[in-house]
């Protein structure tokens, strides 16, 4: 029984830290603000979720404590992460940060140029 619970904890922990590592790697590697924002705020969501779940299972199996605060942590992370990501990229776009030159299309440009014509 302890072998199974240990295996679950280890798998969650390793997967979570691997995803966080990939997020950091992507942050360095990607070319512009928008794509970096993808790596920073998104791959990290699943990574943090898995690490917190591993901690939750650790307390559940080893100490038999149902640690509801860790579950709450996941919930609050899911509420706050997209807001931060959205605001950062929106602020970048509105202050005129250029997209990567290999970007394919930009539907927002049309809207912005129209907005300026209006009073």
């Amino acid at each position, binding site marked *: 029984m302890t072998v199974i619970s240990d295996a679950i904890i280890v798998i969650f922990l390793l997967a979570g830290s691997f*995803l966080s590592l990939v997020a950091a790697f992507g942050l360095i*590697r990607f070319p512009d603000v*928008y794509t970096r924002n*993808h790596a920073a705020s*998104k791959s990290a969501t699943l990574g943090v979720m898995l690490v917190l779940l591993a901690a939750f299972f650790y307390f559940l199996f080893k100490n038999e404590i149902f640690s509801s605060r860790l579950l709450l942590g996941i919930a609050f992370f899911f509420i706050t992460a997209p807001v931060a990501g959205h605001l950062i*990229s929106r602020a970048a776009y509105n202050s005129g940060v250029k997209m990567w030159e290999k*970007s394919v299309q930009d539907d927002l440009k049309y809207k912005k140029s129209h907005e300026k014509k209006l009073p």
Partner: protein
Amino acid sequence: MAFQILLNVFLAALWMFLQVSFSARTFIIGYLLGMLLMLGMRRFFTERFYLHRVWAVIYLFLLFLKELVKANLDVLKLVLSPKLKMRPGIFALETELKTDWEVTLLSNLITLTPGTLVIDVSDDNKTLYIHAIDIGDVAEAVDSIKNSFEKAIMEVSRR
């Protein structure tokens, strides 16, 4: 929906009074029995039975988890591939959702799934501008969001 939940709690309290036992266990049994009773009489309510909506919320959550894992694997592949072959861009998504909280929920879910990120919402709440890290086919991306998230959210908010 609020009325139905209140009625269900009232039925559970009634069961506790009938049993003369005021423990959590009796409350839960009474709640389940009341739910069964209301399920039998659901055609007398003007709205649909509230468990449908609870189920729709659970379905939305499971759908979100599935998309989260799938999209994470896609971004993982992009980050770890030796050459940057991605084609990022911003595309517009026309949404049929009306109220503020529906649009908020949709854009939060889109932003949470890796690979797509809502940058701006038009003033009339009808168009979402989404930055995608790898646009394969715009029509396909729009379709997949419309068929999964938007449909599930409409199922939650339907009366």
